[in-house]
Structures are given as C-alpha cells and as structure tokens.
C-alpha cells in the first residue's frame, strides 16, 4: 500500500490536523470527537447546515465548511459513517439558535447514525430537520431496498442550501429548498481503478488493465457492471444517458453540469470528459447554464469520474451564484 501516512489508524485525525494548519482563518477543527466547524461558529440566528459521513471523499464534507456552505462537517472513519454522539457534539457547536439542517447521504449507516443523532439533538431542544441525498441512478430506485446512494449531488445541495441559510432563510425554507434540490439532481459514476482503505492495505476490488466498473459508488464497493474500457465518448455516454433518462431532463431544461473526479483522474482528462458531456447535452437541447469541474466527491485514490446534472430554476441559480468561501470552493 503506497500512501503518505503515518499510522493507518490515525489518518483521519492526522489529516484534520493538517486542514486546521492550512486554513486557520476558515476552520475550527476538533479531533475527539472529530469534527470541523466554521471558525465563526455558531452564527447567531442563522440556520446551521451540518453534514458528515465516512472519510475518504475529501474535500467532501470537511472542505466545504465555511461561509455560504456548511457550518459543520463530521467525518467518520474512512468509508464509515460517524457515530451519533460526534454529530450531536458538532450540532451543539454549530447551531446558532435558528435550528440545524442535517445533510445525509443515503447509506444505511449514515441514515441510521444521523437519525439517532437527530433524536439526541432534539432532546436538547434544538430544531433539527434532515435531508437525505439519493442521486445515484446506478442504483435502482425502490422503496423495498436501501435505495439510491448519495453521491455528487451532495456538493451541489450543500452549496445551494448553504447560500439559502446565509441569506437568513428559516429552517423550514432551507429544508424545503434542500428537498427540491435532492429531487432534481441525478448522478452516475465510473471507476478505472479501486481505492485502497488505509487500514486494510489492499485495493477494494481488482480491475484488469482493460476493464472499467460502471455505476460505481464512492466506497470501494463494486459497481453495477464491469465492461471493457472505452473511449471518453463512450464513457461519457454511458454515464450521461441513464442520468438524462431518469429525471428525465428534457430539451430546453436549464441544468448545472458537474463533472467530478473520483480522486486520481488527471484534470486534463476531466476537462476532456466535461467537454464531451457539454456537447452531448447541447445535441439534445439541454442547456448547461452552470458548471463545476474538479475532484469534489472522491473515493481516496480511485481513478474514474462521475457526472451530475441538477435541473436549475431561477432561485437555485441565484443561490448557486451566491458567494462561498471554503477550503475547496470559493467565489
């Protein structure tokens, strides 16, 4: 296992210490339990936006703490949800009296742990609501299964609702807007290689030189199907079509296109894929009016990418354009 780490058991906390050193103006970092808040937290009378989940997806979520986005992020161990008490402590630090919205990616572990956290927080008389992101169309959408995973759409939601909270909207409004984002966002990913969890020391799965894994998640879990490696055109089409069909996104729709790297994909390949996606969308009359390109929801050193489409309206566009200042996203 080739990693720049000390003790594999300490990677999460060691990385948080580095973040604290790197962003003293933006972040306030605690290590036991591990969580990160805005340096000016709690912000009085502002709805607090709190998220979290397993580590290994950096910059998600810790890199999105700051003005106009998250008030706090709670990283669990690598690929494992944080525990309820960690979330509870983070909410206690972040809540400014206007209630807290929890952003949860739809994984059984995250849902259950945040559920318990919400109960604990409520017992302390903090108003709390939860939005669950489930945007991964690679997974069949069904009520009798665990349902879809939360992936790339999470970043877009956190940015947009972060702006809504920063504008002073109340908890009910933030929650409703968050639901609207969650309902209008779809993603799909591909892996060209597997990630290696530090304390496991071996890749989560093995792909032959000419294989790729379509419909991949972000936790080293295998994807929907394994197929031969294709050209960028072929790869982008395999991701984009199921995303488009699902909502569905239609001719004339305005969308935000988010081209995400799974970690180790060179930026040049990512831009190349983004350009292809833009062309394919243009061919169908879907209008890309906002875009995000970069490694934002990663899976350690996994090679691969995901495409996320969010259907925009004027309000969501305005909130997207609002200023944001975090380690990983600033404008």
């Amino acid at each position, binding site marked *: 296992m080739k990693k720049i780490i000390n003790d594999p058991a300490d990677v999460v906390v060691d990385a948080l210490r580095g973040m604290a050193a790197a962003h003293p103006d933006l972040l306030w970092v605690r290590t036991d339990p591990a969580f990160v808040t805005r340096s000016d937290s709690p912000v009085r009378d502002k709805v607090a936006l709190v998220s979290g989940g397993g580590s290994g997806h950096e910059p998600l979520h810790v890199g999105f703490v700051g003005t106009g986005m998250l008030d706090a992020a709670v990283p669990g161990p690598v690929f494992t949800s944080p*525990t*309820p008490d960690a979330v509870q402590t983070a909410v206690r630090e972040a809540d400014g009296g206007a209630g807290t919205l929890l952003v949860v990616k739809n994984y059984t*572990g995250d849902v259950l742990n945040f559920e318990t956290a919400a109960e604990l927080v409520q017992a302390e008389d903090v108003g709390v609501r939860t939005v669950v992101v489930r945007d991964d169309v690679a997974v069949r959408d069904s009520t009798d299964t665990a349902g879809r995973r939360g992936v790339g759409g999470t970043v877009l939601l956190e940015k947009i609702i972060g702006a809504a909270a920063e504008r002073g909207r109340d908890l009910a409004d933030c929650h409703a807007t968050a639901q609207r984002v969650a309902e209008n966002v779809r993603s799909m990913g591909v892996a060209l290689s597997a990630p290696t969890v530090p304390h496991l020391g071996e890749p989560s799965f093995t792909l032959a030189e000419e294989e790729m894994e379509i419909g991949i*998640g972000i936790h080293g*879990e*295998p994807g929907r199907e394994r197929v031969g490696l294709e050209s960028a055109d072929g790869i982008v089409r395999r991701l984009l079509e199921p995303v488009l069909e699902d909502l569905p996104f239609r001719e004339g729709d305005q969308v935000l296109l988010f081209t995400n790297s799974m970690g180790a994909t060179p930026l040049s390949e990512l831009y190349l894929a983004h350009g292809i996606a833009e062309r394919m969308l243009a061919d169908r009359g879907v209008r890309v009016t906002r875009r995000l390109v970069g490694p934002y929801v990663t899976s350690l050193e996994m090679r691969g990418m995901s495409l996320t489409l969010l259907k925009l309206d004027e309000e969501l566009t305005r909130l997207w354009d609002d200023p944001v200042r975090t380690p990983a996203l600033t404008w």
Partner: protein
Amino acid sequence: MVCTTQHVIAAMRAAVRAVSENRDELVELDRAIGDGDHGENMERGFLAVDTQLRLVSPGTPAAVLKTTATSLISSVGGAAGPLFGTAFLRAATAAGERETLDGAAVAALLRAALDGVTARGRAERGDKTMVDALAVAVEAAERTADEGTGPIGVLRSAATAADSGARETIPLVARKGRASYLGERSAGHLDPGARSVALLLHAFAETGGDR
C-alpha cells in the same frame, strides 16, 4: 442453569475476542459485497465495549447489555453500529430488573433484539442481512427454551441456527444495506452482518451460562 451478571460479562468478553479473531474474515466478506469495513467496525465497537465494561462494572444483565449497546452506538458508525446497538438496547430493556436469566429469558432477549433490528433497519427475511441469521436464531432459541432447556442450550441452538441462516444468505440477492447496490452481483456471497450474528452467538454460547 441460569445466567448471572458475571456470565453475561464473560459472554461479552468472549464476543470481544471472537470479533477480533475473525476481523479479517469479516473484512473479506464485506469487501466482496460491501465496502470492506465490517471487520474494522465490529472490532472497534467491541474494543469499546470491553473498555466500557471495565470502567462501568455493571451490576445487572440489563446494565451489561445497555453498556454494550451504547458503546457500540458511540463507536462503530456504519450500518452495523446502530443495528447491533439497537439489538443490545432492546435486549437490555427486555432483561429488565432481572438478576439472572434462564433459557426462556435468553430467548425473549433475542426476540427483542430481532424486533429492534427490524424496526431500525426495516429489513425482512430474505433481504440478505443480519436479520436472516438472527431470525432463525430466535426461532431456534424459542423452540429450545420451550423444551425447558437452560440458557446455554438455548444459545447453542441459536448459534447453530444462525450458522445456517447466515449460510442461506449466500444465494440471495441483497435488498438492504450496501450489498443491495450490487443487484444480482450480490448473489453467491455470505452476508458479513449475518456472519457476525453467528459469531456473537457462538461466543455467548461458549461462556454464557452455567452448564
């Protein structure tokens, strides 16, 4: 033929050892159809249980079970944490004020644990989860308890049944938990959570009561 607080503590210690010893197997099972952390999660959880039991010195079976539950909930994360946590929490509630547990009580605790897991995780039998092992274990425990068997006998039959319940998850297509993302590709693999249930019950059976 009853199980004292000291027995329950010893049972939990045996579980700590069993989880540590089988950590790698659980990792491998979870790697095949999940994210490979189940062994880590369980080990972290039961090490916390171990520590807390030493610190707290619980005085009743219920207290042991509750300490176990809260330790798991506050240290595991992942799906297994809240699910096993709820299982032990419900078992604690079912144990009530009792100072000792007989065979029937053990069966009742297991039933309560199962109810907790299904209430929390909403998995049904056949969804390829820990429920598949736990449900048949509960049924076997109840059958054996009805025959008047003591706690250790009840746990033994539960453990054996859990083994076969776990094995029966192999051909299933997962409908809950992370393995469900794999769809048809989840078939052909043993569910890690079901394996953990069997491991725990075997550990309890070995030390869990007066012979």
